[in-house]
């Protein structure tokens, strides 16, 4: 995956570049809004990671400019401003995701990977499959190895989100945002308990694990 990082803090930018490289992605870095805009216009990137406050041209204005020129590459906004209003204005300007500083790199990586996949939307698929696990979005049924599993509505949505991003790491905050539609920090391990309950339902009686915990990052549906 090719990522463009527009970030004026050189140290942070080089750390990100290196970390993305370790995760198997290539990243270019621009140190201000104008340079970033020019690179974004010219290069062929999969995801933009844009700091909100940039010298010469504000991050939101860069995104708005790109969108006005017809560039639909997913953009993730990094910001020190993390209030409800800030998130709303960020997304309204054309951002696709919003992450408040300071953040864990694993969180950023998970979000960037999900954003890249988002472009090839799986919205049209009515059935998600991972190994012997099958989720039918129309009939709201879940089967594993042909055996039906009964889920609560929220558990269904949780599994739906995880399966939609099968093979990708999904963090706890991503789950809270996308399954519950809340953006606050849940302090305790509420999400973990939900996930382990779901895991109990889809793994009990089956010898292969399918919902994996990715240490220090989140969860992943993966059929080994």
């Amino acid at each position: 995956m090719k990522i463009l990082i527009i970030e004026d803090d050189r140290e942070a930018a080089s750390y990100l570049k290196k970390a993305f490289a370790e995760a198997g992605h290539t990243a270019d870095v621009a140190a201000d809004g104008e340079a970033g805009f020019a690179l974004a216009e010219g290069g062929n990137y999969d995801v933009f990671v844009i700091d909100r406050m940039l010298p010469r041209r504000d991050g939101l204005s860069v995104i708005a400019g790109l969108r006005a020129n017809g560039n639909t590459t997913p953009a993730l906004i990094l910001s020190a401003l993390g209030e409800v209003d800030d998130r709303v204005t960020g997304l309204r300007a054309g951002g696709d995701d919003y992450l408040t500083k300071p953040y864990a790199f694993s969180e950023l990586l998970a979000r960037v990977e999900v954003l890249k996949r988002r472009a090839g939307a799986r919205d049209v698929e009515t059935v998600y499959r991972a190994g012997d696990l099958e989720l039918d979005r129309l009939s709201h049924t879940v089967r594993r190895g042909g055996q039906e599993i009964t889920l609560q509505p929220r558990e269904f949505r949780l599994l739906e989100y995880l399966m939609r991003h099968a093979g990708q790491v999904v963090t706890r905050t991503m789950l809270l945002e996308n399954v519950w539609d809340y953006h606050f920090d849940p302090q305790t391990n509420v999400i973990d308990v939900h996930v382990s309950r779901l895991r109990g339902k889809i793994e009990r009686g089956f010898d292969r694990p399918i919902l994996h915990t990715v240490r220090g990052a989140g969860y992943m549906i993966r059929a080994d």
Partner: protein
Amino acid sequence: MATLSAIMKTTAARLSALYLVLFTACAVVLVIYVSSLSTRMLVGQTQEAIAEEVAGLARAYQRAGLTGLVRLVEIRARQPGANLYLIADPSGFILSGNVESIQPGVLDAAGWTESPFLYRRFGEQGATSRESGHAAVAQVIRLPNQMILLVGRDLSEPEQFGRVMRRALAVALGMMGLGAFLIWYFVGRRALRRIDSVTEASRQIMGGDLSRRLPVTGAGDEFDRLSENLNAMLDRIAGLNEGLKQVSANIAHDLKTPLTRLRNRAEAALNNTAGPTAAKEALEQTIAESDQLIRTFNAILMISRLEAGYSAESTAKIDLALIVSDVVELYEPLAEEQGVTLKAEAAENVQIDGNRELIGQALSNVIDNAIKYSAGFGQKPVVSVSLRKEGDAARLTVRDNGPGIPEEDRERATERFVRLEASRSQPGSGLGLSLAKAVMTFHGGKLELSGEGGGLAVAMIFPTGKNE
């Protein structure tokens, strides 16, 4: 005189000067009007008396001829306070009457004299100069034999009246001026003194003595009211300032403690010789510690922003019941895992103006606390959430049957960073209830803690407005 010029600059002085000018103008107009009216009236009366006199004399003339007329004139002229009588020959030579000399030209035209003239009576001393004469009005009549008869009356009475009026005016004006000046001086000086003391006090306050207050004399006048209001404002500022100091002390304490721990752990990891596994573990703990710090920091930031007031656009019509079911559903598995029964009993469709995110977060903090403190306490830990409409308010209560908070500590429990001694051992930033309180204040509601139901009951009371 420095004080005088300062007084001149006061509002009181300016007002009294303005009043003085206005009153003087009014008084002058009034006096002129009254005196001219009364003068005219007196002159009119004089003329009437003369006309009557003339009619009397005419009757005598008809009855007894010129001789009779002359006699009558002689008699009347001698009476004390008599009118002026004069009979002259056509050349103006005075034949009879009580007038010795008269201003030239008066006798030339018949009828009423056009303006007061000067004359001198018989027996008056040193009376040739014009100034010593008296002014009078008179009727001049040509008798059939070309003799001239003048009947007149002295004008000293109306003139005197006018003089009295003018003098009264002058005295009144003088008194008024003096009064105005005195009022001006004393009121102005008093106002100035009050202002000076207020200025002095405020200068000292600005100089850093925030405990000082503006003087209140107890007179209950506008200065006192102003001072009282300003003092109330100063109290509020001092309160906020005190709160700020308290908070920065708390922030310093609650952030420095974990920061120190963080640093120590990193240092220990650096000096670690036990191998890469131990080092990795130490690093992981370091990250967990810093995450907790970030969490605390975010909560502080959020509380400050809430207290500073959010923009209005961040609120919308929302259904509290939906938030309750969301959050309860979110915490249900956690509660179960902790062996706590989480129950919810919510009225349907409770609409309020609010921010879903903030209320969700506040409620999750309160429920999180309730589960945390009731878990493991007693035989059957229960947390019950209820939502009720109460008049024009919605009451969202979270009750637990945990240890609760002693009544005397409840007020403090919602203050920032307060973690009551009993709960020091529990994990958490100590900001959960403070954040909930800030969210409630932001929504124009309040957070109430009570012991109802055995443990702690936290009630979030939202105004629902008048649409319910």
